[in-house]
């Protein structure tokens, strides 16, 4: 926990006060080595969402203090300094950041659409954790199996390397290869913790800025960001175009209840298939089929159930309760997805004026790559007596 706090402070100071990409990179590498390779990547802030959700939903589980700290500290920091956690502390981010070689620009429509996935993933992760069905965020974490490859804390256990997670290793490898050409794909479009951080970072008090002073609109930083976080100054809209936007907004807002209801209804429908994620529901289904003679023979799961001597009534009652929970939760999940889509559409149809090149506080991970592109920054460093770094 002290290490986490220290790293967060270091990353924040380096991104906002010192403005040094090189130092930020060092903190990032240190985090990759410590949180990733030394501690095996577990528990991380991304996964802690589920522990928190489970603690809030299940009175039998108390979230350990260290896990609560992993969840809360980066959030508090995001409120004040933006996503510095992503820049220097998150081992998943660090691993992806290190492999960036030739980032391609992702078209805006794709960026916006894929960006929604993170919120959907967040909703699903919370739903399944709160109902005790599964920790899907951990199960499908593409990088944790890579972290386990080099268990620095257990030097005698190097043979452990290729564990029972070969499929996840391959997936992780794919993410890293893709990450060479698309900057931080997991952080941008999937990370559920990043989704929370994005929301909070919009309110951040101090932000990582491209330029240390006034922007001179020289356009040099335009292509500096491998993660597509730099926003260009807006062009003055032609006269008469404003009402169209207003009309679009009005249509969207009047459609809001429909979208939300549709989302909720769809989620309600999904509740039943969702419930199959829970082992108790799967077991009850299988027992029902076996007793009705619709399937031949037994499986390990039902053998264990018959051997335990538990009654079918309790099993069915338990499964029913879980199913009801997931149907309710599924409806909430659907509402959430509807809300996310709606907010995105509204957000896209509100036109904001921007005079300078700015880092989008939600998308910016404070990696500091753009600093060296800014001539104002180079001037500042020259005055300080140091040689300006090459971009």
């Amino acid at each position, binding site marked *: 926990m002290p290490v986490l706090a220290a790293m967060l402070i270091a990353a924040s100071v380096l991104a906002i006060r010192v403005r040094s990409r090189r130092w930020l990179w060092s903190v990032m590498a240190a985090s990759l080595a410590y949180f990733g390779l030394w501690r*095996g990547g*577990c*528990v*991380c802030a991304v*996964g*802690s969402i*589920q*522990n*928190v959700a489970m*603690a*809030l939903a299940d009175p039998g*589980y*108390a*979230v*350990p*203090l*260290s896990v*609560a700290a992993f*969840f*809360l500290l980066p*959030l*508090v920091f995001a*409120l004040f300094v933006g996503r510095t956690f992503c820049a220097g502390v998150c081992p998943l981010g660090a691993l992806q950041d290190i492999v960036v070689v030739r980032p391609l620009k992702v078209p805006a429509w794709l960026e916006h659409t894929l960006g929604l996935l993170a919120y959907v993933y967040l909703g699903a992760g919370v739903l399944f954790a709160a109902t005790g069905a*599964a*920790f899907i965020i*951990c*199960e499908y974490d593409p990088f*944790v*199996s890579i972290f*386990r490859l080099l*268990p620095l804390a*257990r030097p005698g*256990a190097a*043979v*452990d*390397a*290729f*564990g*029972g*997670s070969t499929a996840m290793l391959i997936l992780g490898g794919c993410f890293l290869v893709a990450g060479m050409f698309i900057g931080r794909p997991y952080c941008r479009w999937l990370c559920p913790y990043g989704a929370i951080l994005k*929301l*909070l970072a*919009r*309110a*951040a*008090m101090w932000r990582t800025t491209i330029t240390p002073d006034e922007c001179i609109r020289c356009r040099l930083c335009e292509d500096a960001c491998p993660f597509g976080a730099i926003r260009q100054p807006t062009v003055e809209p032609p006269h008469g175009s404003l009402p169209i936007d207003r009309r679009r907004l009005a249509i969207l807002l009047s459609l809001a209840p429909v979208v939300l209801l549709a989302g909720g209804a769809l989620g309600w429908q999904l509740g039943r298939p969702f419930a199959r994620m829970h*082992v*108790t529901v799967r*077991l009850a289904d299988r027992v029902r089929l076996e007793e009705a003679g619709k399937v031949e023979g037994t*499986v*390990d*799961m039902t*053998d*264990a*159930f018959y*051997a*335990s001597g538990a009654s079918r009534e309790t099993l069915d009652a338990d499964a029913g309760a879980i199913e009801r929970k997931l149907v309710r939760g599924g409806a909430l999940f659907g509402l959430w997805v509807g809300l996310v889509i709606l907010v995105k559409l509204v957000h896209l149809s509100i036109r904001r004026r921007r005079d300078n090149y700015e880092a989008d506080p939600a998308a910016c991970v404070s990696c500091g790559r753009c600093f060296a592109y800014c001539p104002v920054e180079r001037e500042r460093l020259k005055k300080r007596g140091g040689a300006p770094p090459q971009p």
Partner: protein
Amino acid sequence: MSEPENAKVKRRDLIRKGALATGLLGVGGTAALLATRAGKDRYVWQLDPEKCIQCGNCATKCVLRPSAVKVVHAFALCGYCDLCFGYFPPHFEPDSAIEEPAAESQLCPTQAINRKWVEGPHFEYTIDEDLCIGCGKCVKGCGNFGNGSLFLQTRHNRCVNCNECAIAIACPAQAWRRVPAGHPYLLKGEDRQT
């Protein structure tokens, strides 16, 4: 837009402050809520030997290879049998009292169980954890014909304690659960702690 420029700036500032306040409230609220739901103790994964059906998933589903699950021997429960069904395959008939039979007549696929003569027809069985892969074959044999003194446990000197245990997901008997790190083992016999 007929509003004066400074009114717009003020409005933007207000929105930002409002957002910050909302964010602080949200995070603070979650923190307060969590404070009521937080515990000092960490959790680790463990399997309940009373629920275990020795399906073999422990050997194959663990993210480590060999698995962090090993067989544990409760000596207090052991009958020190000559014809141990945790040691010999079922229907095995020894020709004479042999201390160490050949590999093909041992049940354990990795010969991780050592057998030592004690006295009379009694033998002591010990586990070589470096060889054990946690397949549970011996546990099944001992449970079927013997006292059930052999059972599986995840060994915490090896377990990396994933936030979501891959074996727990695959366990057909729902034998895995999170236990407080202060009592990390679910033992059999006299050592049993709940």
